[in-house]
């Protein structure tokens, strides 16, 4: 599968093991991680408490009243020995996120374009032409870390995070892109706003995006975004 010494099981407390599968971020990791998620659900059954997949790892939380850490470790070792890459399901669902790219909702759109030496239209095109993969969810419910953006658009996080980023804000940090499911603090470079409801407690599955999914940002007009029910309040209005 990959680097020497991997996969490796690392202690993660009384009720957890971290399975380290890879040592670098790569789209090719995803079908292995999604396969391991599924296999762990089957292997642990009722003793499984939670699973946290991420770029190169899977954290497995088990019930220490049903299993000792040693038993859980053996179960994981057996599961890993039989693991096969998730060829069939590894493609993930495909989502299109209607997005209005504009400086009034994306205050870093213009500075980011300038830094990249591109005009704004070209910047938008480069962000919208990539089909991204979801590598991890975290930070907040439904917040999906997606990659990888065009190298020209790579930008470090803001030095001082904003206290309040509006829901639906689309941003870039490093080689990653994401959309904020809800109002929260945040340090990503904002370039637009999507109408997609990324987290909905009343929807089956709650989160629109899951690890392994494929995502495209589709440029739309402000009017289209409003019709889709999105909040298009400008950043200035929020201050």
């Amino acid at each position, binding site marked *: 599968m990959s680097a020497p010494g991997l996969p*490796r099981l*690392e*202690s*993660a*407390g*009384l*009720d*957890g093991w*971290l399975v*380290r599968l890879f040592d670098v*971020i790569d789209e090719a990791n995803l079908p292995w991680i999604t396969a391991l*998620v599924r296999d762990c659900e089957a292997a642990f059954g009722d003793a499984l*408490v*939670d*699973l*946290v*997949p*991420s*770029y*190169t*790892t*899977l*954290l497995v*939380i088990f019930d*220490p*009243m049903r299993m*000792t*850490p*040693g038993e859980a470790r053996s179960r994981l070792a057996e599961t890993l020995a039989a693991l096969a890459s998730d060829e069939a399901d590894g493609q993930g669902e495909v989502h299109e996120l209607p997005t209005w790219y504009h400086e009034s909702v994306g205050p870093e759109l213009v500075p980011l374009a300038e830094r990249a030496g591109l005009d704004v239209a070209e910047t938008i095109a480069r962000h919208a032409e990539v089909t991204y993969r979801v590598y*991890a*969810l*975290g*930070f*907040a*419910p*439904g*917040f*999906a*870390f997606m990659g990888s953006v065009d190298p020209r658009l790579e930008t470090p996080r803001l030095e001082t995070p904003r206290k309040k980023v509006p829901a639906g804000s689309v941003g870039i940090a490093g080689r990653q892109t994401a959309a904020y499911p*809800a109002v929260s603090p945040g340090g990503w470079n904002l370039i637009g706003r999507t109408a997609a409801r990324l*987290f909905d*407690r009343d929807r089956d599955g*709650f*989160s629109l995006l*899951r*690890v392994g999914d494929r995502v495209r940002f589709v440029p739309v007009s402000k009017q289209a975004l409003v019709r889709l029910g999105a909040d298009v309040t400008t950043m200035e209005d929020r201050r």
Partner: protein
Amino acid sequence: MTAVIRKAVAGLRVTRPGPLALLQDAGRFGVRRLGVTQGGPADLQAWAWANRLAGNAWGAAALEVTLGGLALEAERELTLALAGADLGATLDDRPLSPWQRFRLRPGQVLRFAQPVGGLRAYLAVAGGFRAEPVLSSLAGVVREGLGGHDGRGHALAEGDVLHVGTEAGEHPVGDEREAPAEARPDYAAMPRLSLLPGAQIAEFEGASLAAAFNTLWRVDDRADRMGVRLRGPTLRCRLTSMISEGISLGAVQVPPDGQPIALLNDRQTIGGYPRLGALTPLACARLAQCLPGQELRLEAVSAERALAEHRRFRAAFR
């Protein structure tokens, strides 16, 4: 609202909100892969005892009262139990010490003042508090806007009502009115927090490791349900940041400033700082009762010892 609420009746009304009071059941599980944190009681031990004294099974929702300040008026006859911190509680102006069961008649007022010993008190009601579960849990998480009495993760505010089941006024089965002395932690004693060393421990410099387990740490004022920052010697690690990965309850992470942070119930689900290891659930519980300035020690333990201690604790609860 669904049937869960319709079967419930008003139990307690907030006449004065404190800084933070939230309903907590055992936590929100199975959704961490969606970025949803676990929530649940910061002090598992006191929460479990409050429920046991109220006659409840493991997992019933109880009220976590942080720092005090809160005042609650009974809307009906209730059987309640209080455990955890001594927040100077009074029942109609008579002192009410924690670790016991008691009754409230309609109109009686339970008030919390400020910490006398410990930081978080747990108030359980016979049958458990009722609210609409969100993602299968009542755990109130302010940062995510999920769960709690209103389903939106809001802390209790003046005028809010806590709902109870219709059985809440009946005496629970069993006549245990108080927790035995051995179940009551001495919050004045210096905590020794059990830590299971993690895989990255070898990446810390030798002197830092010696310091981690041989010096006094002090609880910083940056301490909440997400995590507790500790102040002490600077810990140096060969790894500075890593690819983000899932984080366990109690994980002790060390950001580049070298000051460890113990991550608690409302932590983010993934993160990328190296970790010394993870506190045991009971060590997290003890840490959750520490006020800023409290001195404590970290103590490495084996998984065997930690498991035996945890199972002994859990055996007391059905």
